């Protein structure tokens, strides 16, 4: 009886699990087979999940038709993207080409994740003529004198405003090339603010900082003449009178002038779209989102000028190769990088700005009038310091800026506090 049961049990076992085991084996084989992709099959990873993602499609199709290559694009939200990218590089199976932000490049380069590209893109002008490169931007793809990437674009902040509200308040629209002065801006924001406690649904804030607060803080800090770190990047410079002025200026908009709500979350631009805010500072990457969703007339102007120095926060997407990328895959990956950089004008319909003079001065680009407020600021763009622990330091002061604007700390106390935190972080790193 038992002898008869055993074969039945075996059969049952295999009938239950044979499909599953086959799937496992297939998965394992697929994983092992990752290295054997033909050289013309390229993987391009990025975080362009917004409207910008659609713009890459014709660009890549064009590349495929010209070269016979096949591109597999992986688009993921940035948060997930970095987790997956790190794992892929660590596993020795990196994508052929991937995108980083300029602010992240130093950390990745310092860790040895990126392939130095000087010999490929700087040895001659065939990749991109040096005279055509907007040097201040291309330099940001370098770290400690070595080039680790090709800039895909540059993006910076601007002042978005609701034209209907300006008309209703009989206010002239801001210039598309000249920034509003600090006092002018506050006066306008005051006139646009409507706060009625009895009818809260009709309330309109004159202004709100949108996105992550550090971008606005950085801009104002530089405008007031301050810096985040000392020149050698080994000490915090945030506890300074200039930083105090910058943070106080932001704080006053909320608590003294009462023209702005406290920053909350990173999607404030959506409340602008709903008509609850009259002006916001946001990046050029929301241009397409606003075009699609805003049911009112809106415009863009340069970021206002609160301090004495013209400055605005900027960053850019950089195309990179992993140090683990097999050498035989490099030529085709470089071709793709060159193509993506060559088609900067087409990519600029995503709202981002090209990184070459010839593109930024081209007729096709200049026809995009909405880009003027951003291109007019290119002479004053500033980048976050290229510190290998820049991301950690930014996390630190972002919390403090946010907490100060939420009314948890007075300005000077917040700065003293974060100065200590940043210096401890730096000391621990360099110890």
């Amino acid at each position, binding site marked *: 009886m*038992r002898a008869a049961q055993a074969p039945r049990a075996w059969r049952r076992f295999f009938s239950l699990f044979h499909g599953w085991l086959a799937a496992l084996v297939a998965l394992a084989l697929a994983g092992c087979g990752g290295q054997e992709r033909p050289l013309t099959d390229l993987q391009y990873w990025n975080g362009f999940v917004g409207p910008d993602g659609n713009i890459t499609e014709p660009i890549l199709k064009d590349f495929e038709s010209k070269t016979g290559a096949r591109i597999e694009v992986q688009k993921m939200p940035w948060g997930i993207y970095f987790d997956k990218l790190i794992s892929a590089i660590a596993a020795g199976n990196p994508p052929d080409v991937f995108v980083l932000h300029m602010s992240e490049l130093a950390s990745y380069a310092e860790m040895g994740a990126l392939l130095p590209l000087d010999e490929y893109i700087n040895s001659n002008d065939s990749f991109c003529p040096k005279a055509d490169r907007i040097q201040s931007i291309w330099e940001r793809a370098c770290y400690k004198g070595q080039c680790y990437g090709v800039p895909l674009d540059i993006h910076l902040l601007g002042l978005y405003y609701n034209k209907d509200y300006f008309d209703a308040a009989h206010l002239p629209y801001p210039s598309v090339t000249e920034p509003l002065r600090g006092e002018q801006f506050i006066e306008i924001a005051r006139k646009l603010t409507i706060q009625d406690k009895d009818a809260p649904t009709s309330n309109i804030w004159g202004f709100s900082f949108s996105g992550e607060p550090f971008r606005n803080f950085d801009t104002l800090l530089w405008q007031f003449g301050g810096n985040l770190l000392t020149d050698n990047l080994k000490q915090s410079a945030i506890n300074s009178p200039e930083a105090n002025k910058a943070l106080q200026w932001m704080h006053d908009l909320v608590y003294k002038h009462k023209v702005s709500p406290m920053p909350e979350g990173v999607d404030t631009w959506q409340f602008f779209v709903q008509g609850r805010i009259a002006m916001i500072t946001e990046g050029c990457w929301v241009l397409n989102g606003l075009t699609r969703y805003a049911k009112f007339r809106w415009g863009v102007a340069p970021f206002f000028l609160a301090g004495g120095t013209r400055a605005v926060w900027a960053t850019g997407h950089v195309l990179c190769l992993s140090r683990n990328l097999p050498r035989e895959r490099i030529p085709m990956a470089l071709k793709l990088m060159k193509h993506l950089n060559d088609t900067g004008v087409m990519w600029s319909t995503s709202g981002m700005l090209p990184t070459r003079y010839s593109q930024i001065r081209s007729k096709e680009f200049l026809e995009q009038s909405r880009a003027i407020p951003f291109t007019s600021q290119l002479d004053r763009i500033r980048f976050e310091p290229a510190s290998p622990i820049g991301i950690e330091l930014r996390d630190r002061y972002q919390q403090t800026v*946010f907490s100060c604007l939420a009314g948890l700390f007075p300005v000077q106390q917040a700065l003293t506090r974060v100065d200590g935190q940043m210096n401890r972080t730096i000391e621990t790193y360099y110890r």
Partner: protein
Amino acid sequence: MTGRTKNGLVNALFIAPYLALFLVWVALPAFFGVAISFTKWNIFTGEIGFVGLNNYLRVLSDDLFLRSLLNTFQYAALSVAAGNAVSFLLACGLAGGIAGRRFFQTIFFAPIILSIGVTGVIWGWLYNTDFGILNYWLQQTGLPRLNWLTNPKFAMISIVIMVIWAGAGFNMMIYLAGLLNIPKSYYEAAQLDGAGAMSRMIHITLPLMKHTFAFTLIISTIGAFQVFDQPYILTGGGPDYATYTYVYHIYSNGFRYFRMGYASALSCLLAAVIALFSFIQYKMLTRRRVDY
């Protein structure tokens, strides 16, 4: 080979697929994680160096270690207690023979199928100080507005409320199964003896639900100690690190600052804390066996 040995072998083969997956995806990485915690490991280049207990000693000088641990304890205490209370009450309501039980079961369970990303965005809007509907309702009833996510006193509570809304249905189903499993004859006998509703709850329901409580409380506590997505999406760990949880700290160190050795050490410490708490809870909740 005897029939018994053959059967044993077959039984072993039945668990072999799970065991293989467990070894490959859980045991091996866990072992690897412990090993990494004694090293300085560059995840990109593979360079690795033994640093002894340095990663464990580093927690002493890390101001965010204690902060994140305390935040996690606070979250665990709030979410496990309140979450299970809500789930149990919902289950009691449904087990009491309410009309349309299946409908309500579905309604209460529905939020579980939403991704935490969607839930986080929705609740972020609800909680917004100036534009959120919760403050609008408070104002309409003459109450002051609350800074749900920007006041350190409320921020963690706000996250807990969201988590309860999103997850109470899961434990509710387990409690409901437990409650429906208690024979009605016990309640009928108690009623004949003159026991009131409260008395029946204390002397019949609660003792017989002991093992269900043990299961849900242990599972909820383990989950609570691993909380990450909710504060990551809703508050970014703020304001002033008030919702910065322990796993958030592990994630930041590992995947944002590339300190894999330190992140592994933090993970090992968390595993020890969870094991300790689970053991204590289990012992406390299963001290006496209850049979009727």
